[in-house]
């Protein structure tokens, strides 16, 4: 079994290509700083991302509300969380920062609104 993997560090513009042993988490080569070593270990062990996407809005001036996870979530849960988001819709008005889904998929992260969408008024 191949126990080696390459991680591109994104902490600074250098973008080190770090070779790491997946199983025992030791750096083979490529890291130019300590931060990169830490980053690449996390990337192998528990890669996390902020997920940003949008949710349907009813009666809003725009059809979509942009949202994000309040904390980074495990990378492998991205598509599972997207499924939950796809089933969700909200009613306008919505305020930026409002919690739309609490503790999504038990990650400890909320889905929060990143935009204010006013109600569509017909006048």
């Amino acid at each position, binding site marked *: 079994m191949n126990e080696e993997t390459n991680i*591109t*560090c*994104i902490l600074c*513009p*250098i*973008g080190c290509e770090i070779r790491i042993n997946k199983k025992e988490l030791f750096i083979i080569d490529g890291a130019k700083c300590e931060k990169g070593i830490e980053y690449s270990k996390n990337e192998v062990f528990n890669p996390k*991302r*902020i997920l*940003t*996407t*949008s949710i*349907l809005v009813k009666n809003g001036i*725009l*059809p*979509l509300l*942009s949202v*994000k996870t309040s904390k980074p979530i495990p*990378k492998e849960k*991205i598509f599972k969380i*997207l499924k939950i988001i796809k089933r969700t819709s909200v009613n306008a008005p919505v305020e*930026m920062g409002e919690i739309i889904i609490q503790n999504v998929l038990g990650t400890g992260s909320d889905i929060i609104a*990143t*935009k*204010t969408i006013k109600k569509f008024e017909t006048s």
Partner: protein
Amino acid sequence: MILIKVTSDVTVIGGGPAGLAAGISAKESGAEKVIIIDRNNWIGGILPQCIHDGFGIEATGLSQTGPEYINEYIKKARNLGITLLIETMVLNFNNKLEIISASKKGLLKIKSKSIILAMGCREKTRGNLIIPGDRPSGIYTAGLAQALINLYNIMPGKNIVILGSGDVGLIMARRLKIEGANILGVIEILPYPNGLPRNVVQCLKDYNIPLFLNHTITSIEGKDRLKKITIAKVDKNKKPILGTEKTIKCDTLLLSVGLIPENEISSDAGIIIDSSTGGPIVNQDYRTTIPGIYACGNCLQVYDTVDLLSIHAKIAGRQSAINTLKENNNNINYADKKIIVKPGNGIKHIIPQQINITGMINFSIRVDEPKNSTKISFKLNKNEIFIKNLKYLNPASIINVKVKIPKFSKNNILEVSLNE
């Protein structure tokens, strides 16, 4: 037609992140009446559709989404009492600092003590690239696709190829993948990706989207809707290599092949444009070649991040305010005391292009290709005044260098170049 006449201390053309940062800074630096004009029916420019995060990391350490980032600026502008004119299109302005704009209420003539240009940029289209083939539907610029999907809930297509690995293209690859599209690949003519490393990792590698470096599109086929494209490897001169062609069946092609600063009204007013940045030639105060007119944001140079753009726009705003406080300052032309800054070996472009004062000057520089390690050298009239080692240079990231300019007289040339 009604002509409404208004006076202003500082008038900003463009209400995106640069215009807002500059307008706020002008107000905070003492300009009494500040007007920001935008042709759209919203303030904030492109940021409301940039729903991904990564904004503000350099400036505040916090990663915000586009709408969150710009919301703080809009709130601040409103709280400071800046006049925000939307649905107002600037038709022209002149060297007497008079702006003519059109709105639903009629024509508006604004006489200002300072003008700040913050018109931003537009995307290159298929017409700019001259890609041969049919003319079917299904070909979009990446930014247009971003507006469709993020603002209007319209999917541009199902099986998608992206031409160009600029940041917008990379971000759209991830965005469309998340929304269920099939991203068949990102095609890049250069031997390296054109976007920031974090976007290559988090938008392509995370989702196993293939990146074809040293490739270009040689043909587009489809009668009504796009059916397939042909890609080929390119040689050192970026010419397609015969026999390396490969067809990809797809219904949608996104173009992320660069941005063009919008300066038609600047040129018409007589402002001199730098052919390498596509933006006005400016001095250390971001003042253009017309006294009293300043430039910032993507109409000055296409920035990589909104963070640096905002920092520079704030300087332009402050200088524009200082200009309004000095009586008749507009007449100072600096013509008799100036350094012309010339990009030399390895430098794509450099700002400012002119210097009129001694002391510390902040230069923003874009190199023309990636380099692991090199020296940057500043030569004033062929005498080296500054040299610095630089590592891991990337054309996707603007470099900032501070250099102390010694006393000088008359006309001078400052040449900036990379030495291997």
